[in-house]
């Protein structure tokens, strides 16, 4: 299993050496960090031909304020059901141009994942057939999973005691 993964990574390095920033391991999980602007569609296509047939998940992380790296990272977790090896791609995406190539045509299961990332992070997936908000209403403003999204709403949330007070005050005017 390990050998097979090493083989794939060797070939990976040969083909896409220009884009690879780091290949590392944490708790036995191998990941590849790819630089901003990598041809992710080609890379995923390559992985697919290598037998990674199951896209376990696709998501993004916002590394706001982390020094020296682009702000976003789109994460692809692949698994090969036949060979039993998994590989994670971490594609860096800059804040100025949050655009990534879509992989829906290679992995149809990425459809909703990409929409979710678009919805919650504002990263656009170029070539996605139906890129619109999925979990939030279409008219929502902002992208909540970004770290600079306001944690407090414009109106201060009222806790219960304040609500009771308000109700009593309004009750004095005959408003229920």
């Amino acid at each position, binding site marked *: 299993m390990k050998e097979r993964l090493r083989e794939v990574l060797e070939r990976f390095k040969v083909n896409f050496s220009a884009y690879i920033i780091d290949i590392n391991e944490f708790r036995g999980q191998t990941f590849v960090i790819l630089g901003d602007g990598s041809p992710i569609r080609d890379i995923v296509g390559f992985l697919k031909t290598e037998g990674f*047939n199951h896209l376990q*998940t696709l998501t993004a992380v916002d590394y706001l304020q982390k020094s020296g790296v682009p702000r976003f990272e789109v994460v692809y*977790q692949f698994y090969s059901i036949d060979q039993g090896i998994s590989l994670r791609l971490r594609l860096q995406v800059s804040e100025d141009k949050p655009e990534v190539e879509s992989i829906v045509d290679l992995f149809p299961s990425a459809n909703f994942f990409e929409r979710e990332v678009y919805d919650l992070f504002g990263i656009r997936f170029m070539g996605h*057939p139906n890129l619109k908000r999925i979990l939030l*209403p279409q008219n929502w403003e902002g992208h*909540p999973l970004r770290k*600079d999204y306001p944690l407090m709403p414009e109106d201060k949330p009222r806790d219960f005691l304040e609500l009771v007070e308000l109700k009593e005050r309004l009750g004095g005017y005959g408003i229920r």
Partner: protein
Amino acid sequence: MSEKSLTTKEYIYTTEDPFFSPLTIQMGPQHPSTHGVLKLNLVLEGEKIIDLEPEIGFLHRGLEKLAESMNYAQVLPLTDRLDYISAMNNNTGYALVVERLLGIEPPPRGKYLRTMVCELARIASHLLWLATHALDIGAMTVFLYCFREREKILDFFEMICGARLTVSYPRIGGVRVDVEEKVLEEIYNFIPYMYEKIEEYEGLLSQNRIWLDRTVGVGVISAEEAIAYGLTGPSLRGSGVAYDIRKHFPYDAYPELDFEVPVGKNGDTYDRYWCRLQEMRQSLRIIKQCIEKMPDGPVCAEVSPDLDMQVFKRAFRAEAWGEKTFIAFLNEGVELVPKGELYSAVEGAKGELGFYLVSDGSGRPYRLHIRAPSYVHISALPKLSRGHMVADLVAIIGTLDIVMGECDR
């Protein structure tokens, strides 16, 4: 048919018939058989589905964002609310990802208990699936029979941890409290009873010609396509792919237990039904082995983090963004817990339930992404149901076994 789901207005149907116009129906979010608040925009020709577009998010509670402001132990009750039908699996999945991050190994008794309750939850979930699936197809008696048995399992949960649905029983590094021998004995006695009841459901459905007519050849998906569309769990195994996290990424006590992964052939609704029923039997087998092999000892690792574990407050940068805006950003340099990121999955009742966790060392998840099987399964719904009838759509929604709490998170 292109991958793009067409909305009503964009829809142009090319047909010879000049009088033809498609019928559009918005099915849900309060339709009796959309299993929660799923909404489907259907484009029909008569009763035949030409296209459909799922609309989700009605139950979105921002769990992933919420988790970022809690410590690792506090997030666990949130995961109850994912797939609330089998909350044990979610809790275990979350506990596992944190354990793997922190490098904790639960003691054997904790592992076995967790495996046992997970399998009980799987049976409970499959019972609810069978109940609603059968009700969708019109067999209303199975619905109540399944609830009869599910009630017993929920009773066990109540005995074990004091709650029936949102259990929060596993904890990081084991389980929260030990189970009395008396309760284990009761669960052990429940196993033959449950075998008998599964026979009863099969007697009502498996051979029934109406059930066969309604399920065989409906919602067929080949093995390759099923993998490509991200189906996991019994929905994938119905297509003949023996992909089971319990075998591929063994966790807890599963490597020490003997069980099979039932696999279907045709990838239709009937095979998925058959797989789930067999899986219930396998689950019973696992529970039996768990109770028989249950070791003694503590149920929780000594290095398990406390519920009120220490956390570092994240820095706030208020001035630049106005008074009301808080920014939580990465803590560089502090390390209460290991830094890193990992993906770990468990075999939830619905499929692969994955947690992608990024730790910045502060004691709170920097990012917690939940790979919910229902979410992916719904994205495969248009593919599965095009060309079928409305009645089949109901069967297909049932066979995918979706829970909106998990899908919308």
